[in-house]
């Protein structure tokens, strides 16, 4: 019991630090997981469990080649030509119990397809997935008890009945005992605030409320693994924060393994100790977030709006560390890309006002798409 509390304390400490100082999550997370691992005292000698094993997993979708227009579509009816789309291509990785892993990539990279195979909705074309040593698409019902799934785009709740009634049905579906149910509802109310709209029909909930409700629904049966597909999509900052806190709290309290896909860099920095990056169905990176940051730095983009009187090409560059990019279509925009660990933000902002006479400015973190592009470019260089 004391070990458990310690884990929670340590985690709290990590989180507080994360907000105030520059982050180096890889090392801190490692220590956190080390402690978390001590927390689970197991009878078996294997020690930590390999919760998810993905081995040479592939999914190929066969689609008929379609002609254009109505005539072409009609011709398709009689043709036997197919294209093969390799949505997931020979992917392998292991995820340990209690890890929070970000599964990221650009749109259409194969994230959702992998997740759907991991939770038993799709059957792989080849290779296999083991969830706690069981293949989800073969032993769907057994695996289903161990996993909770949230698809950001699709609600799992019943549309036109109050949330609490949906929960009651799920309680029966997952055979949650009364005492567990009470405890879980209390916990979820405290971390996600679902009690505020417990008696409202789901269709009347806002997007943020609905996502919190969906998240709570997926946690009711205390799954060993939580799959979250875009859990923060379309949420405002406050809701995002609530969701992240809840995921952390759940992970700390029940030691739940979490796999999440997201497009939000902040999600990854806040939550994930490890990221797996996929592009065109293949894994291009698997490792701690810290490594990525070390490789690409803490890159930020400062977008300036400048008056027409200023020619950005004539302004002396701030330093060698700052890359300037211009947009052909928007002559009044200047983008400065720099490593926030090497350049002092305050200085570059002052410089922008004094030298570029900036009217407006916006700071953005590096996007996942940028990171993917950079990794791919780097891998190509290594090949040559």
């Amino acid at each position, binding site marked *: 019991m004391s070990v458990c509390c310690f884990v929670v304390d340590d985690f709290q400490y990590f989180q507080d630090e994360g907000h105030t100082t520059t982050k180096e999550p890889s090392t801190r997370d490692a220590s956190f997981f080390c402690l978390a691992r001590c927390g689970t005292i197991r009878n078996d000698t294997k020690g930590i469990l390999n919760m998810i094993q993905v081995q040479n997993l592939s999914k190929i*979708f066969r689609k008929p080649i379609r002609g254009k227009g109505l005539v072409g579509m009609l011709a398709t009816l009689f043709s036997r030509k197919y294209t093969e789309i390799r949505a997931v291509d020979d992917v392998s990785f292991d995820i340990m119990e209690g890890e929070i892993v970000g599964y990221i990539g650009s749109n*259409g990279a194969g994230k*959702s397809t992998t997740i*759907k195979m991991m*939770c*038993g*909705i*799709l*059957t792989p074309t080849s290779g296999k997935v083991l969830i706690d040593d069981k293949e989800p*698409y073969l032993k*769907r*019902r*057994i695996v*289903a*008890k161990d*996993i909770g*799934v949230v*698809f*950001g*785009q*699709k609600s*799992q709740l*019943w*549309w*036109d*009945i109050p949330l609490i*009634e*949906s929960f*009651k*049905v799920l309680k*029966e*579906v*997952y*055979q949650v005992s009364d005492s567990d149910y009470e405890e879980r509802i209390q916990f979820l109310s405290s971390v996600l605030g679902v009690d505020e709209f417990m008696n409202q*029909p789901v269709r009347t909930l806002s997007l943020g409320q609905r996502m919190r409700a969906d998240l709570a629904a997926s946690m009711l049966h205390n799954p060993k693994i939580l799959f979250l*597909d*875009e859990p923060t999509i379309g949420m405002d900052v406050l809701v995002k924060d609530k969701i992240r806190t809840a995921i952390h709290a759940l992970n700390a309290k029940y030691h739940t393994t979490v796999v999440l896909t997201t497009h939000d860099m902040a999600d990854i920095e806040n939550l994930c100790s490890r990221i797996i990056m996929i592009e065109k169905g293949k894994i291009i990176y698997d490792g701690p977030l810290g490594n990525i940051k070390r490789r690409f730095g803490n890159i930020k983009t400062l977008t300036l709006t400048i008056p027409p009187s200023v020619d950005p090409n004539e302004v002396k560059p701030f330093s060698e560390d700052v890359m300037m990019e211009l947009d052909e279509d928007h002559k009044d925009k200047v983008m400065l890309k720099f490593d926030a660990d090497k350049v002092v933000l305050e200085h570059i902002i002052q410089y922008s006002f004094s030298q570029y006479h900036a009217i407006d400015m916006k700071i953005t973190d590096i996007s996942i798409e940028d990171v993917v592009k950079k990794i791919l470019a780097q891998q190509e260089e290594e090949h040559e």
Partner: protein
Amino acid sequence: MRYVKLYLTCIKRSMMSRLEYKKDSIISILSFLISNACSLGSIFFILQAIPSLKGYTPAEVGFFYGFSMLPIALDHLFSDEFWLVAYRRVQLGDMDRHFLRPVPVIFQMFAETFQPDGFGEIIVGVTMITICGLNLQTSVSFGAIFVLIIGAIFGAIIITSFKIALSSLAFIFKKSGPLLQIVYNFTIYAKYPIAIYPQAIRFILIFILPFGLFISLPVDTLLYGSYNPYLLSLIIVGAAIAFFALATLIWTLCARRYESTGS
């Protein structure tokens, strides 16, 4: 036992969904009463206009018609969700959540909707059977009543089996509603004595789409003692078990092909 409890919970949920929209509920109850009254009225109107059909008196034809509504209504009560599977749900990728729950997907389909409209059809059917039955000039045996009850209950299972098997084709073709509709429409032919049809259709209605097996043959047994009621009951029960087993097998095989949609 667990599934009985779960089924009741889900049905309660389904009824709550229906009652959630007040005005909609009132309208649907009203339209339900009106449409059933109309169908009952129009059937009697037609029957009065027909002197006889291949030797069957109007009362006998009415009895056929009324009895045929019972298995159809029973199926309607419990398995309405399969229409949605066939027409929409697979195509929209709306089945994901069912594949994530530790309960057979096919069970969840039964538990997803309970269609009380079926009760109306039962009431109409029973009313017709009673009125026409009182006008029959035959003595009713226990065996005949037994085979009618078996025909209604296990006939419903056969209809449901067709719905399961054909709607599960949607997992492969994305949409199988039209096909299901064509097969389901064959129940219309089974509303009349199969003696009025040519040999080929009779064969189809007994051996391939056996709606005649559990509607026409039991009624003929009641009216004319054409068949041994207990043997016929056995055949109907056997057919129902075989069709249901085959249907669930087809469903299981097809469900593996479910592709969901991109998100």
